[in-house]
């Protein structure tokens, strides 16, 4: 059985923040150590509802996390949605030990790493698919490596020539068509395409260098 208190819509599943001061102690006791207790309960009776709640809660932050690797709004959104589809279809929610939060962040990160490898890595680089399995618990090294990678990508893009950077971001994060960018920046379509492929080239080099 499951209930949660809240006083407004925003903190539906964050009873601690929404509860009256007098309730705080008592609610805290339930919440500490497992903030997903409500969602866990929902999964017991109605997995689809549980998935929906997780989606509402984590879709935004996960997209924000994913975009740091793939540097494309569409790809990040598709990727996160895909993780959620698999989560539902393959019933991964039954295998999750630990929190759904860490499961989802791991799954998104693994998917993102695969995508980065595919897009920027060497073609012959081995592409083990870690997204299909429920991710292991002790993947500290990978966790930190991934953070490094996102940092490297960020740094590389920051160091792109200004125009090149602008075109790249407009294309990948503002979902603008090449034609649109050309019109807006008053350059030729060819120049836009050149900027984008230059940015991708530099990124590819940087990522390949990191992977040795």
């Amino acid at each position, binding site marked *: *059985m*499951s*209930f*949660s*208190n*809240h*006083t407004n*819509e925003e903190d*539906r*599943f964050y009873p601690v923040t929404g509860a*009256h001061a*007098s*309730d705080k102690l*008592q*609610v805290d006791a*339930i919440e500490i150590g497992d*903030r997903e207790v*409500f969602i866990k*309960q*929902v999964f017991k*009776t*109605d997995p*689809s*509802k549980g*998935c*929906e709640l997780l*989606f*509402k809660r*984590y*879709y*935004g*932050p*996960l*997209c*924000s*996390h994913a*975009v*740091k690797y793939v540097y494309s*709004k569409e790809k*990040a*959104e598709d990727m*996160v*949605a895909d993780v*959620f*589809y698999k989560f*539902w279809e393959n019933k991964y929610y039954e295998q999750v030990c*630990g*929190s759904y*939060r*860490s499961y989802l*962040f791991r799954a998104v990160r693994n998917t993102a790493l695969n995508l980065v490898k595919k897009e920027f890595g060497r073609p012959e680089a081995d592409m083990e698919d870690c997204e299909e399995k429920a991710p292991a*618990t*002790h993947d*500290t*090294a990978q*966790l*930190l490596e991934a*953070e490094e990678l996102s*940092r490297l990508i960020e740094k590389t893009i920051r160091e792109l020539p200004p125009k090149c950077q602008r075109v790249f971001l407009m294309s990948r*994060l503002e979902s603008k068509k090449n034609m649109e960018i050309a019109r807006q920046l008053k350059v030729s379509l060819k120049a836009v395409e050149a900027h984008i492929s230059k940015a991708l080239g530099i990124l590819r080099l940087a990522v390949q260098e990191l992977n040795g």
Partner: protein
Amino acid sequence: MNLITKDIIYKYLAGGTTVIQKRQLEEWLLLPANQETFYECLEEWERRHPQFTADTDRALQDYQKKLYAQKEANVLARSLSDDTGAGKQEETYYPLSPARRGRFMKIAVLLLILAGAAVYKDQLLYKHYTTGEKEIRTVLLPDNSKVTLLENADLKLARLFRWKKERTVWLKGQAIFNVQSTRDHRPFFVNTPFKAQIQVLGTEFDLYAASDSTRVFLNEGSIRVNIDSSFSRPFIMKPGDLAKMGKKNLVQIKNNQFYWQFRTQVSHTLVFDKTPLSDVGLIMKEQFGKTIHIPDTALAARRISGSYKWTTEKDILNTLALMMGFTVTYGENGQAVLK
């Protein structure tokens, strides 16, 4: 060893830690419990520093389609194949999704325009059947469907009803419908002023359509309720089901309401979605006939969400009491008082 604080994690995520701290973090992360903390911080971090605004609502809609495609198909299949109905209980509860304002506004604007047009065309295009105080009237529609209008009801249909591809009527007030199927299987729709449209797949139901609430009880056959999309997904009702749509964003389908007390082995679920405790009281009254009194207005206004399989009303109250930290006392007349 444990020098890692949330501050350091946030600093790390911002790219501002020293190599030494990074090494410590690596050690620290070896513990699964610490990883949980790390992901908590990561979530918080991503929430506070979003890279872009993801369109969660739209993505959620797609996801919901996937999640509920199977379920709705099952419900439809069952309600079409099993018309005897009364012997089986269905668990079909659809909690409401939060309003999608943009879409709602579009619909609202559209409705406004249509309403404007209707003011002038109404008399020309439509025929009204109305009843007054203490008047009951049965209307035989051109397709031989019968509608019994209870007092103060207004039924509207197109003058061209007979020739329309879809049989559509509008109801304000309460009426009992007995819909006949036609040889060419024309669908029958009942529109209500408050958020819902009833698509008739079968035959007999009782509909109460007020300006601020809608209530449907299905007696025979099967109907589909198309609700304003900002409010809930459409759902299909089976005989004995009762659905209510009120201001408080609540849809309930109570299965075989008339028979539920004679059945012991069925499991019942109550779904609350941002429901104030005062409304929970009203629901309990309807379901169990027990009055619940909440003297403290602040307590009455507190909202709860969740689903609960219940056996008795005491069960529900006790669990609620535990969660929300109130006490339940029972008065002489069986009235429950929450404090």
